[in-house]
């Protein structure tokens, strides 16, 4: 599936999943792509993509917040979960990433959760460049870090009608686990954080709704709206 298709399917699941239910899925990318946060300017995402040699791949605005993410071999996944009571996003990150940290620890991979040092500057590039608007350039609060402090996993969130959507990106090359084993660990961590979370197969109606929404995510009206 391409980048607009993945964004659309995530929004469809968020919209259509029954309240109180949890689902997760791992992406299979058709090719490299760049996604950027709901509120970020397109020009910023394009500048970051150009600087990283990814200007020629699809650049798509996500339904979630956060920074620019390069999907060039990352392990990408999404989780829809109950988020009934309005509460700080950092609590969701903490819960999700602690679950995954525990699952990795069982496999001998030691990680830590980044501390809170103020909000990340996601919307505007610092003087001289847009590096700090890129998700993996610097840890945000409650990101998952490797033993050397390098960021392993970052996420982005959307809350709608008492349900949450988490979109996560894990850099497998920064972790010594084989990719398949890493996927199993992430799934285990998600289920620890959200007991009852189910993986695919997803409801066919969600795919149909996602196909209808894919046009939006592929459009200039959506991606260049800011």
């Amino acid at each position, binding site marked *: 599936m391409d980048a607009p298709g993945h964004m659309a399917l995530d929004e469809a699941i968020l919209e259509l999943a029954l309240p109180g239910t949890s689902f997760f899925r791992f992406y299979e990318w058709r090719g490299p792509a760049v996604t950027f946060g*709901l509120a970020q300017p397109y020009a910023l995402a394009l500048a970051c993509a150009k600087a990283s040699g990814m200007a020629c791949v699809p650049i798509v605005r996500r339904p979630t917040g956060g920074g620019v993410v390069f999907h060039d071999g990352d392990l990408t996944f999404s989780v829809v979960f109950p988020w009934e009571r*309005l509460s700080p996003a950092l609590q969701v990150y903490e819960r999700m990433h602690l679950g995954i940290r525990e699952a990795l620890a069982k496999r001998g991979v030691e990680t830590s959760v980044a501390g809170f040092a103020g909000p*990340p500057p996601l919307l505007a590039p610092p003087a001289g460049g847009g590096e700090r608007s890129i998700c993996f350039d610097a840890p*945000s609060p409650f990101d998952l870090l490797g033993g050397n402090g390098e960021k392993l996993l970052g996420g982005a969130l959307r809350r*709608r009608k008492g349900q949450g959507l988490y979109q996560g990106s894990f850099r497998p090359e920064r972790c010594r686990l084989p990719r398949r084993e890493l996927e199993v660990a992430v799934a285990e961590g998600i289920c620890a954080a959200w007991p009852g979370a189910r993986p695919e197969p997803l409801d066919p109606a969600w795919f149909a709704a996602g196909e209808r929404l894919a046009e939006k995510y592929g459009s200039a009206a959506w991606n260049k709206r800011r």
Partner: protein
Amino acid sequence: MPRPEACRYMKSHEWVSLEGGTAVVGVSDFAQGEMTDVVYVDLPKVGGKVKLGLACGVVESVKAAFDFYSPVSGEVVAVNEGLAKDPALVNRSPLGDGWFFKVKPADPKETESLMDWGKYQDFVKAAARP
């Protein structure tokens, strides 16, 4: 700036205040505190229609985007342009300079179905319990 006691509230934490023939809309102090640092507000368009209880925009804070819902039905007659330059107004003054948009209500009595200040305070206390 409306007094909190003069507003009506949604369970999703939006407030509405009727001022003459216009309804002013924003999010409550509790909501801004839970969403934390607001970095962007996607507002409805002037001239567009909003409907009670339906999503009409998005607030983005630290790495999360929150849908918000209209507490009144009608036509949007103004939006808070100041939020584009300074979205943190929502945090600093949620009932004042951080208002979202103004509506010409289709039915001003519609907001009577929402919580008054006393009921909203009880609702927030219950929601804040772990």
